[in-house]
């Protein structure tokens, strides 16, 4: 039950993009069409679940053990960078189909603040491994949901007759603010 509340809360109530403001760059940059939104969303899910669990293991079994907790920012960013690089090489060699779908998004993921942010939040909230994995899954699902919703809206915005000043980024921010308001409506469900 607690696990369910965590997952539901992370997807809807404190959505990672619309309430916590992590991963705004890909949210603005890769939401032009649904196809790339789905690709980016799935890649982020895959990497976030792996990186969160590995960072949790690194923190618990290496940093805490040797009293190096203060190095967690450096340790985590290096872990994530190495993981993404390894993943890219592994997929390229062994699962070319998946590499074709995710390849272009993988390098972008290293500097996605959502990945590092969730890894750090898991430690800050003192989650155990199961909660860490659940939280990573829920946050990345929330990211994917927001990204795909935004891409769906933007595909229709292409045909809309907008004032010149609103074209491009400004209207995307206004759409995002309406989405954020709509998500506020989920507050109080748990």
């Amino acid at each position, binding site marked *: 039950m607690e696990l369910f509340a965590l997952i539901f809360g992370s997807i809807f109530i404190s959505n990672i993009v619309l309430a916590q*403001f992590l991963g705004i760059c890909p949210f603005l940059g890769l939401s032009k069409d649904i196809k790339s939104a789905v690709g980016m969303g799935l890649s982020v899910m895959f990497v976030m679940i792996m990186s969160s669990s590995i960072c949790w293991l690194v923190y618990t079994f290496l940093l805490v053990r040797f009293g190096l907790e203060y190095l967690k920012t450096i340790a985590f*960013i290096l872990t994530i960078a190495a993981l993404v690089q390894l993943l890219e090489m592994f997929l390229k060699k062994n699962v070319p189909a998946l590499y074709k779908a995710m390849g272009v998004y993988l390098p972008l993921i290293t500097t996605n603040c959502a990945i*590092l942010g969730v890894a750090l939040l898991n430690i800050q909230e003192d989650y155990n491994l199961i909660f860490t994995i659940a939280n990573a899954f829920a946050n990345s699902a929330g990211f994917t949901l927001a990204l795909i919703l935004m891409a769906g809206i933007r595909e229709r915005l292409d045909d809309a007759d907008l004032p010149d000043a609103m074209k491009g980024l400004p209207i995307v921010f206004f759409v995002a603010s309406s989405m954020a308001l709509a998500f506020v409506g989920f507050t109080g469900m748990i």
Partner: protein
Amino acid sequence: MKLGKEFTKGIIAENPLFVQVLGTCPSLAVTTSVNNALGMGVAFTAVLVCSNLVISLLRKAVPSDIRIPSYIVVIASFVTMIEMIMNAFAPALYASLGIFIPLIVVNCVILGRAEAFAGKNPALPSIADGLGMGVGYTLAIVAIASIREVLGAGTFLGISILGSAYQPALIMILPAGSFITMGFLFAGMNIYNRRKAMKKEVM
């Protein structure tokens, strides 16, 4: 003379937030009050100046194949230092900025300056560049925070300026408010650029 130019370009002509659209995450998240935005701006500028300096000193020693990981290590070290300093001397600010202090590591402005400027230029211009970009970024987030705090709470730096009759627009403090503020500011930028382009045509 040239140093001055490196410094001023970051403030308006190449403003990291409004012109390059980099580092949007903290600009949305920490701008609920001017105080937070100032704190974030100072921390950000400190990290950027230090990392620019060290990266420019190391530029001949680091092989170009592994430059990105080494930049990240340099930046992450300075972020960790700033994090500890803030935790010790400004615990209230540290608590309210929360996760966004360690996340300066993945702020694309810093890595972007390392790659575009500090990795290719000597130490002094790199410091000027970092300082200019830092001040530009700070001004940008303080501008956003001023709009949000004045409209959303009726205060500026915690001091009431709109009087007790003002009914605060709570939405400006909510996440939605930051998106609205950014939307208007970027729309304003669009209009400004268009006017400038038209003036050039007439001339």
